[in-house]
């Protein structure tokens, strides 16, 4: 990112860290308050509704005193204990059971282990035995548990909007099937999402065999269609593409957010981090170049980042290939002429020369990846480049694609919509998905639905599409039903139900099996048949498969390094047309999968709604992301409403000035602005699907921007808990690190004054500590949701967030580094309670509600806290949170079921904060004592944030044990304490961030 002319230092020579554009312009100004008051003014305040006047207050307190008196004299309410009548096998009341399963994420399987208490799932973790999760998960998987308990999921089938029963539906299917069998199923269409479930594929084939005239269409708003198409071009067959980032020294990401929204992100992030983990200054480190329009999580972690509009990425890819051919003699055969003579406007020369020489110097150890947004021709060129650079078979391998139909994603739904409009579709079955909302706007899918004889929609919520279909069936959650998934690595997993469907509900395979006329169409039978078909026979093998969560043998044929069909790739590249240059009057919009909502399917999850976006730090909304220089040219500020229009379609959306956004390119994230997502998701953010068309579903130029002259309040936490310009996230380049290995110490020196009192002796017993490696933390925010799920952290709502009352115990601060607003670097810093040995919060508590444990934990007793909030004021790290309102009162029963039974559900008026997952520490101690041990093994206690972290940036354990992983980390030279100079002696330590810039890039 240290591009030419981009000064990273100010005139005073100091590296500039800033959290928002406003703070950078005027570090002293209290924009936070100004911004907060905006939102508060424009929304109805809960507090105002219940303002207490003095007289009311006196009246109420009198009544309260009287009630306390009465309550004290009567018996506590009778509480019942309900034992099982017939206790299921393996249940030990009070001790959780763990089940292995998997979740489908963007065409990839993510192996999970689910914790259940007496049949009640409460927490999701990664399955360490599964190759795509390796024990970690992502934030969407963490939020899956809330999705399961969402009280607004569909509760019953509906027929023409009237509640019906599954028996009615079964009767309907029976008659319909008899009818369909007479004409071979003509007029029957099934619309499904791309799948990696072998049983689904089997059932789909069974349906087509039974009813040969029927057709199955595949569509998802975010898909891998162009990747599959590219493999069809390059190799002559659709294949899956499997990267190995751990072996790559140099990675070039072309508009690819492989750490966040691309398939297999957990595995990719782990591998990328493993090649970046620096134990000492003598270690080696990979280098990431990112070329992208939006500031993605991957781009934030890049050593060099070039912001380029999405339409120019293809140009860059070709120019890079040309450079590799001409300067380094890389053999691209017949492709060579197709990449020559590309205009290089907007592409700095060193971005071709230095990147090409870096790639050429690391043949077999480099990797070029492209994002799902880029056209198939770019992907095909990337396959050719990886082949020519000797990477194929080493850092990238290819395997048999399980569901090749995904390649036709947009064509498939377009064909369906036109047949529907022409009245050729008699019966339409929609399995999952919400096409009336998220299909390309030019298809008018919702209108076309009206011309379908009978439509059946199977979906988790009564959403936009459900309102337009004849039948709506509740779709069972992945934790409620039998299913199976195959990972891109070929590993096979059976999904097993944790509990019976809360509100009935059927899975996709069950509905498909029913339509295919399978006599045993229940999920369990279908999956078992698939398993047997795969040669896993017998009860023992079946149980082992369920137990381990992944089959011993793999099932995808590994195709290794495939020959690239140069001629076909060249042909595809020649079809790429160079679009006219972008300008303020010819803007581009780029559609991106949202880090939280993805394509809109998670829109009703309060955890995800309230989670600050990793980059913009906006909660409860999305925004049109515009780069600072483009915004200036257009006269826009953050918060201005604009109308984006093209070809008669338009979207009104709030703008957000986003540093690092490509010039003349506007970033739009999908999945927001739902109208029928549920009461949490409705009306939050802005729906951008109306601008998306079949012709240009990924990015499109020629968009006009019209300023509407009104503003919209956004709640974002970017400036909350600001630490006033001190050196917090400390970073250095690799060469600086080699020169001065203990660089963080210079910036965060230990205090030189004597303590005020006798220091506590922490030399005995377990002493808990945490280490966070800023070098491998990629800012994905999975830990924030994991902490929320583990510790019963409440959601407070948009207005409360604007008031600075966000409750997350663990937050990820995002700092921009550098003087140039358009091309800043990024540093992420996760911050929770630091568990200071000399904790400033403890000294000011008037009731000793917070005090220190002999094991170095900063404890808090909620029942003792009286809510003075002195501790919050005195905390230098701003990690304490206050329950301003009773966020846990009157929550629906199903949401109560999610709560971790080993953590107190807090009431109004108490302070809370990270406890280092003390419930897990106590659990481990209890187990040790049951086994007669008085000491704990290293790794026996794993905090929730540590467990979820895809990059293993967080380590936790006993710092008194010199052999523990956390002790080893603390001894590395990059180790430093946050704000060490205040003398709080925090137990959480950070490892300084290392950047690995290419010296040639300075040019």
């Amino acid at each position, binding site marked *: 990112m240290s591009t030419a002319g981009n000064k990273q230092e100010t005139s005073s020579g100091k590296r500039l860290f800033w959290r928002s554009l406003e703070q950078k312009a005027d570090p002293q100004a209290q924009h936070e308050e100004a911004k907060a008051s905006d939102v508060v003014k424009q929304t109805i305040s809960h507090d105002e509704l219940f303002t207490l006047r003095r007289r009311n207050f006196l009246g109420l307190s009198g009544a309260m005193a009287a009630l306390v008196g009465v309550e*004290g*004299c009567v*018996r*506590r309410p*009778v*509480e*019942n*204990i*309900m*034992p*099982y*009548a*017939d*206790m299921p096998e393996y249940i*030990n*009341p*009070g*001790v959780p059971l763990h089940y292995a399963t998997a979740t489908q994420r963007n065409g990839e399987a993510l192996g999970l282990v689910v914790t259940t208490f007496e049949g009640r799932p409460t927490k999701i973790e990664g399955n360490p035995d599964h190759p795509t999760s390796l024990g970690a998960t992502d934030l969407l998987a963490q939020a899956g548990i809330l999705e399961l308990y969402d009280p607004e999921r569909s509760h019953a089938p509906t027929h023409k909007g009237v509640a019906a029963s599954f028996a009615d539906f079964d009767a309907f299917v029976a008659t319909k099937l008899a009818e369909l069998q007479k004409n071979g199923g003509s007029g029957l269409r099934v619309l499904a999402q791309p799948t990696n479930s072998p049983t689904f594929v089997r059932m789909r084939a069974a349906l087509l065999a039974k009813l040969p005239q029927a057709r199955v269409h595949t569509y998802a708003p975010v898909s891998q269609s162009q990747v599959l198409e590219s493999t069809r071009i390059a190799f002559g067959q659709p294949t899956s593409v499997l990267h190995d980032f751990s072996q790559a020294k140099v990675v070039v990401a072309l508009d690819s957010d492989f750490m966040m929204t691309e398939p297999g992100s957990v595995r990719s992030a782990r591998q990328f981090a493993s090649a970046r983990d620096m134990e000492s200054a003598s270690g080696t480190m990979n280098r990431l170049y990112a070329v992208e329009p939006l500031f993605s999580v991957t781009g934030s972690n890049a050593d060099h980042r070039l912001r380029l509009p999405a339409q120019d990425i293809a140009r860059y890819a070709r120019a890079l290939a040309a450079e590799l051919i001409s300067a380094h003699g890389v053999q691209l055969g017949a492709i060579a002429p197709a990449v020559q003579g590309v205009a290089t406007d907007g592409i700095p020369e060193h971005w071709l020369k230095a990147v090409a020489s870096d790639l050429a110097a690391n043949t077999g150890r480099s990797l070029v990846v492209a994002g799902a947004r880029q056209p198939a021709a770019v992907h095909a060129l990337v396959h050719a480049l990886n082949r020519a650079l000797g990477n194929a078979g080493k850092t990238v391998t290819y395997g048999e694609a399980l569901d090749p139909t995904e390649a036709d994603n947009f064509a498939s739904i377009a064909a369906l919509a036109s047949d529907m409009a022409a009245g050729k579709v008699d019966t339409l079955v929609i399995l999952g998905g919400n096409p009336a909302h998220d299909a390309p706007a030019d298809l008018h899918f919702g209108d076309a639905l009206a011309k379908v004889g009978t439509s059946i929609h199977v979906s988790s919520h009564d959403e936009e599409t459900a309102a337009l279909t004849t039948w709506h069936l509740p779709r069972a959650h992945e934790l409620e039903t039998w299913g199976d998934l195959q990972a891109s690595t070929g590993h096979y997993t059976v999904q097993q139900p944790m509990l019976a469907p809360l509100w009935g509900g059927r899975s996709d395979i069950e509905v498909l099996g029913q339509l295919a006329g399978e006599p045993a169409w229940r999920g369990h039978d279908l999956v078992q048949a698939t398993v047997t078909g795969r040669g896993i026979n017998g009860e023992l093998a079946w149980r082992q498969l369920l137990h381990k969560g992944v089959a011993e043998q793999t099932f995808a044929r590994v195709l290794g390094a495939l020959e690239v069909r140069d001629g076909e790739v060249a042909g595809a590249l020649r079809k790429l047309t160079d679009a006219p240059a972008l300008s303020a009057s010819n803007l581009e919009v780029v559609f991106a999968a949202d880090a939280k909502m993805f394509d809109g399917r998670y829109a009703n999850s309060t955890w995800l709604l309230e989670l600050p976006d990793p980059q913009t730090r906006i909660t409860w909304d999305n925004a049109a992301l515009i780069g600072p220089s483009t915004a200036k040219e257009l006269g826009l500020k953050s918060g201005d409403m604009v109308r984006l229009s093209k070809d008669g379609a338009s979207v009104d959306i709030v703008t957000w000035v986003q540093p690092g956004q490509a010039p003349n390119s506007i970033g739009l994230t999908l999945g927001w602005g739902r109208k029928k997502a549920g009461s949490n998701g409705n009306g939050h953010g802005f729906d951008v699907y109306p601008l998306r068309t079949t012709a240009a579903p990924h990015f499109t130029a020629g968009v006009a921007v019209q300023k509407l002259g009104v503003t919209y309040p956004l709640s974002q936490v970017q400036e909350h808990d600001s630490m006033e310009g001190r050196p917090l996230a400390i970073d250095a380049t690799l060469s600086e690190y080699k020169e001065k290995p203990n660089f963080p110490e210079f910036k965060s020196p230990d205090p030189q004054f004597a303590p005020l009192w006798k220091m506590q002796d922490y030399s005995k017993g377990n002493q808990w500590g945490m280490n966070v490696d800023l070098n491998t933390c990629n800012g994905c925010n999975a830990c924030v949701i994991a902490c929320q799920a583990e510790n019963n952290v409440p959601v407070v709502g948009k207005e409360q967030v604007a008031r600075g009352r966000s409750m997350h115990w663990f937050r990820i601060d995002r700092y921009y580094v550098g003087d140039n607003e358009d091309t800043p670097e990024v540093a992420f810093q996760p911050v929770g309670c630091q568990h200071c040995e000399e904790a400033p919060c403890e000294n000011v508590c008037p009731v000793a509600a917070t*005090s*220190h*444990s*002999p*094991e170095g*934990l900063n*404890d*808090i*007793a*909620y*029942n*003792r806290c009286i809510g003075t909030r002195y501790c919050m004021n005195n905390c230098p790290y701003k990690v304490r949170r206050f329950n301003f309102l009773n966020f846990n009162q009157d929550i629906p029963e199903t949401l109560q079921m999610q709560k971790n039974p*080993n*953590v*107190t*559900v807090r009431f109004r008026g108490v302070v809370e904060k990270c*406890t280092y997952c*003390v*419930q897990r*520490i*106590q659990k481990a*101690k*209890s187990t040790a*004592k*049951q086994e*007669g041990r008085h000491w704990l093994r290293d790794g026996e206690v794993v905090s929730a944030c540590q467990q979820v972290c895809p990059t293993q940036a967080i380590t936790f354990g006993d710092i008194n044990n010199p052999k523990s992983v956390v002790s080893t980390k603390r001894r590395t030279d990059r180790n430093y304490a946050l704000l060490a100079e205040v003398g709080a002696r925090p137990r959480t330590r950070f490892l300084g961030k290392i950047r690995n810039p290419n010296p040639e890039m300075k040019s």
Partner: protein
Amino acid sequence: MQIFPRSLNYLPLVAALGVAVLGGGVTTGIWYYFSPKNTQVGYAPEQPIHYSHKLHAGELGMDCRYCHANIERSQEAMIPPTQACMGCHAVVKKDSPKLAALRDSWKTGKPVEWVRVHRVADYVFFDHSVHLAAGVGCVSCHGRIDQMDVVRQDQPLNMVWCLECHRNPNPNLRPKDQITNMTWKPSAEEATQLAEVKLRGPQHCSGCHR
């Protein structure tokens, strides 16, 4: 000229009365707070089935762990499922009218709704298994269950009471094979051995509050 109105003459009286009422209130409050009435010692609610520990654990001599089977492996002491009761009562006293509710539960699959006797506050996380592993016997907290026809709360179960033992657990310790023995008394040798055990329960907040 009168500065103060006449009614102020009553001020001393009102003040004295106020102090008396307030003082009395505070005294009553403190007395009540520490009295067994507040800690509910002796609470013995009526149960849906007249299950007698005196009969089962006392006279028949059944071990506590026959029914509370998970006690050494879980924080919660399980109330046995109907299934466990039916293990015997499908044969023994199988037509007794007193067991109608039990047979109903077995037939319908609906749980017997026992009334909770021993209750600590929701913010307290008591772990049975750890206490047993340390050698604290059932009788220390639950009293002579084997003599109770109707189970009643024997100890106050408040924080002072917990901390007393956490600070000095030795008087309540016993060999692990005597955990469920209600009448165990240490021999002189055992007593000296147990007095030397250096075991302390946690006395910091997160030991019990999370």
